[in-house]
């Protein structure tokens, strides 16, 4: 067991997978010698050679398409996009080709590939470096999308993604890359795709979140104790966005009768809306308050001076919790 942060967890996952299977290769902008802008692939070229970990010319559309070709022909490419907002040229291939290959070839060709990308705000980055576009990926049938928040889940989900026979998008919140460390098992293990993680049990309110907002929510759950000392809150880290752990969320809301979904993405047409709709369909009889969400606003992610207005923060979550808990019919 080693105590590592999220970045190191990415490196370890790739290292373990490359050690086990020579068809696993990683490429993307600057991933070779330097190990990418966040150093996630640092050391892999030195260990596995330039043919298995290399810099690719800047062309995200090509990364996705070439990765698809490799995957169809027996390899396990792990493509790194430098940032989610800069990986948009790859989106065409993700939507039009990668997600559809199994279906359109009636199972003859498949796309067992992984695309990793740093995402999310709160790191004082430049324009296009803070987007949270998980809803766009989750909306595409044929791919799966995961967003780990802890080192344990990061390593386990990336290994599960590499093992998966389907194309997987791994969203990595930049804010959490070096935020904290955790004990992580050495060697191979996986975290199942589609399973949530219950951070804490509770009876009065279910909070569902993922990525960097797990940290905001954990703080909020502490803060709310000062005004609502008896409130018992169940906190769920979704870990997988699509497929997501409906069962865990539905069971939880049936027990608590209240739901708050927290995500930093812009508000409209987002992942929280999907979760709320599903809970509404399945738990209507148990509900004690309107289903709620705490999100960013529907604006272009502001540059640094305005970003704090847009970001979810623990106090915003606290206010949202109060509204749900204090609701009277």
């Amino acid at each position, binding site marked *: 067991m080693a105590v590592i942060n999220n970045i190191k967890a990415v490196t370890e996952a790739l290292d373990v997978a490359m050690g086990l299977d020579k068809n696993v290769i990683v490429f993307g*902008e*600057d991933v*070779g*010698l*330097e190990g990418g*802008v966040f150093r996630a692939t640092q050391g892999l070229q030195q260990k596995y050679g330039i043919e298995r970990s*290399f*810099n690719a*010319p*800047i*062309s995200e*559309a*090509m990364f996705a398409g070439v990765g698809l070709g490799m995957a169809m022909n027996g390899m396990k490419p792990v493509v790194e996009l430098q940032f989610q*907002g*800069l990986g*948009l*040229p790859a989106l065409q291939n993700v939507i039009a080709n990668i997600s559809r290959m199994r279906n359109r070839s009636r199972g003859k060709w498949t796309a067992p590939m992984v695309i990793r990308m740093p995402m999310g705000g*709160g790191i*004082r*980055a*430049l*324009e*296009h*470096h803070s987007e949270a576009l998980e809803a766009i990926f989750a909306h595409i049938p044929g791919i799966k999308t995961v967003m780990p928040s802890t080192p344990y889940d990061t390593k386990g989900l990336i290994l599960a993604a590499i093992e998966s026979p389907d194309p997987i998008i791994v969203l990595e919140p930049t804010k959490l890359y070096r935020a904290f460390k955790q004990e992580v098992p050495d060697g191979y293990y996986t975290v199942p795709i589609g399973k949530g993680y219950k951070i804490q049990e509770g009876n009065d309110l279910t909070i569902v979140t993922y990525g960097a907002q797990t940290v905001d929510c954990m703080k909020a759950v502490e803060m709310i104790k000062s005004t609502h000392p008896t409130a018992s809150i169940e906190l769920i880290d979704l870990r997988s966005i699509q497929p997501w752990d409906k069962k865990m969320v539905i069971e939880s809301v049936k027990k608590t009768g209240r739901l708050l979904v927290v995500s930093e993405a812009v*508000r*409209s047409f987002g992942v929280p809306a999907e979760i709320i709709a599903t809970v509404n369909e399945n738990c209507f009889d148990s509900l004690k308050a309107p289903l709620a969400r705490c999100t960013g*606003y*529907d*604006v*272009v992610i*502001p*540059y*640094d*001076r*305005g*970003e*704090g*207005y*847009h*970001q979810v*923060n*623990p*106090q*915003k979550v606290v*206010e949202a919790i109060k509204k749900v808990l204090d609701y009277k019919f």
Partner: protein
Amino acid sequence: MKYIGKFDPQKDEIVRVMDKDGKIVNPKLAPTISDEEVIKAYSIMNLSRRQDDYQNKMQRQGRLLSFLSSTGQEACEVAYTMVIDPKKDFFVSGYRNNAAWLTMGQSIRNIMLYWAGNEAGAKAPDGVNSLPPNIIIGSQYSQATGIAFSEKYQGKKGVAVTTTGDGGMSEGETYEAMNFAKLHEVPVVFICENNKWAISTPTVQQTKSLNIAIKAIATGIPSIKVDGNDFLASYAVAKEAVEFARSGNGPVLIEFDTYRLGAHSSSDAPDVYRPKSEFEDRVPYEPLVRLKAYMIAKGIWSEEKQTALNEEQDKHIASEFAWVEQNKNYPIEDIFNYQYAELTEDLKDQLAEAKEFFAKYPETKDGGHH
């Protein structure tokens, strides 16, 4: 034409007027330019360099965001923007264009405001057709092509100039834009500032092309390679290229052979990936030293003038930064107001909600990081 078509990119021919010591080695290729204009160009190059240095310091203190410096690339940036009219022509920039922005007439104040994280800095003043920094690499080539198409279609006389790096030339969109631009013969000057590095990826891992200029050949666009650290050569070719495009001959591509002397951005460390010897070989060719030597030899510049210029520019930079520090924040309305021509009903509600929250908890605006 003196340059375009006369230098063959397929033979890797390059336009050069002065050597590394600022001595004119190719007098026949020297442009017609007044001493006054040369001094003006040099002053902007000097200003940009000092601004880069200052911003680096401020960034290390956490007072500016990460930014991309033009250090080492000032000669070509000043050259290609000096030869266009900011009112009539368009500059569709990349993100590493400080010297070009200054030449276009963007203020230091705005540029610093932008790197302090305030979008207001991205707005060019009236009469300056300079687009905001373009972070998504490659897409500026299409935008410039569209602008140029409109100029031609509407019978206007403007030219669009756009630039990217050697890495950027790997994005398919640059080829796609050039192809369209040539088909419609639109007045656009495509520029590549080949500074040899794309973050940690060197040009040789970006392309097997002999050079960047030849990438235009397949589209039918004439192209030319120039010593981008040689102000006179850069100016001469840029001027001819803009005139070429303006006179209805269609697009042209210039590859400026230059070198990134600094880090990729103020948050990366080139020592990890860049051979020290390569860097040291390139330093003597840096553009300010060369142009200054030329000016001194010509008797139009002196160390006294240099000292005075440095003092004046440093004072200006520092006082503009002081203003920026005082004025970098903005009200919450600013994140909502520019989404649409008018706030939608839904956004009005969201703004009201945000205002109510931040009136109650103003300290949470900083998200804990500044």
